[in-house]
């Protein structure tokens, strides 16, 4: 059954059809939640809450991008949680073991076949990026995650954020401005393939 069929079945109350949609989109939703909240536990809560809300309000989906619709729900759930907490999310990003050392869980590693030093550099870069994202206001952070991390275009990001395209442009530009001082220090951590690709495109 294709996505539209699953959605229609879910609207009729078919829980199995909805759970298939959950499996297809949970990485996307969890990534958004984690990048916005900055810690695992809060991201899990926001993700679960988003899917529950999506199931209960499936009849409010009126077509268009289902991905964007889900991202909007999880973004709002994160906004609500951040407002409740009234603080910016902070590191550590990974759970701590008995010695308070960060534990690398399999879910965090994109490629288990990496060399150890590459894995360490990637992990450090990931942490650095998240630290820099945490320094942004939630509105700027949301925009840069939607477009630069999740790969949405400006129009779709505007629908998710409930803001005009002009606002999307402005927030994204300001987010990137503020990130450059923080991120560029870790430029050398970026895998060479990415750096070479960038230099070759000039």
């Amino acid at each position, binding site marked *: 059954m294709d996505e539209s069929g699953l959605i229609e079945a879910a609207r009729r*109350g078919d*829980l199995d059809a909805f759970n298939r949609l*959950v499996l297809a989109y949970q*990485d996307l939703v969890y990534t958004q939640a984690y990048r916005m909240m900055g810690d695992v536990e809060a991201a899990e809560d926001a993700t679960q809450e988003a899917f529950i809300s999506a199931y209960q309000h499936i*009849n409010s989906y009126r077509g268009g991008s289902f991905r964007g619709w889900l991202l909007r729900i999880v973004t709002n759930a994160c906004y609500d949680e951040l407002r409740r907490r009234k603080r910016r999310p902070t590191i550590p990003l990974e759970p701590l073991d008995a010695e308070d050392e960060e534990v690398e869980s399999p879910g965090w590693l994109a490629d288990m076949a990496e060399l150890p030093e590459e894995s360490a550099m990637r992990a450090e870069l990931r942490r650095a990026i998240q630290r820099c994202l945490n320094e942004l206001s939630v509105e700027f952070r949301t925009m840069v995650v939607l477009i630069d991390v999740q790969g949405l275009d400006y129009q779709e990001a505007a629908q998710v954020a409930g803001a005009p395209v002009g606002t999307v442009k402005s927030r994204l530009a300001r987010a*990137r*401005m503020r990130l450059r001082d923080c*991120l560029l220090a870790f430029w050398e951590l970026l895998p060479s393939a990415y750096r070479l690709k960038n230099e070759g495109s000039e």
Partner: protein
Amino acid sequence: MKKQLRQRDWQDLSAYLDGQLSSRERARLEEKLRSREDLQNALEELRRVRIMLRSQPRLRAPRNFTLGPEFASQGVGRQPFRRLSPALGLVSALASVLFILVVIGENLFGAAQPAMAPAPAEFQAKSAQVEMAASPTELALQKAPEQSVELEAEPQVTDQSMQAQEMSQQVEGGVTQTLDVPGAGMLEYPAPLARAYEEGAYPPPAVPSPTALAAQETQQLSPQPTQLALPATEAAVAQSAPEQPAIAPAAETVQSPSGFWNPWRFVQFGLLLLAIISGALAFYWRQRSR
């Protein structure tokens, strides 16, 4: 000297990276980039930031977030109220517009009413006063032929006192009616006057007391039967006339308590309440459905 870039420059560079500039804007920016090194450096910095962010893989969910069987029994939310949200918003907007129109209409067309509104009451009061003035006269004139007949029939002094007696009998002997006049208490009036009051000739006519009326009758006795009635009537009218100015203020004071809460006010209040409630409900359900 390093030139500080404006916010607009950063925004243009960021949009240029994503291909979000129009062809004209892109051409203009590229021309500036050719001549300004600071813009080139800024563009390169933004490019690296974007690369670093896009180099990050999508995170894998640490567990499955599928819903358990307990959600199957709950069912999918129908959200009937959410569908009402746009309609409620429309209702709120319409009620607000109507409220404004009613207020404007009342101010434009109701400005004449305060001058006019008392007029009917004034007219009623005046007409009551005219009736008051007339009715004693009418009464007297009605009685006058009878009196004249009686006087002619019995041209004696005792007939005149009998007239006075008759008048007082008519006043005292059951042709009167007791009315509860605000501010004056229970007063006796001749029945026709009392009827006029009850029919809306408000305020009640100022009629001299029956004993005073009878006393005037006896004091103004004359051989001419018609002349007998008129002076008494005129005296009664003259006596009642000074009291007329006292009536008008009573009429005005009785009117004023109902001046604010007229039907227009109820309409305005209802529209305002409808606009506020429907607007609040529409906003609340729309926020909940997000």
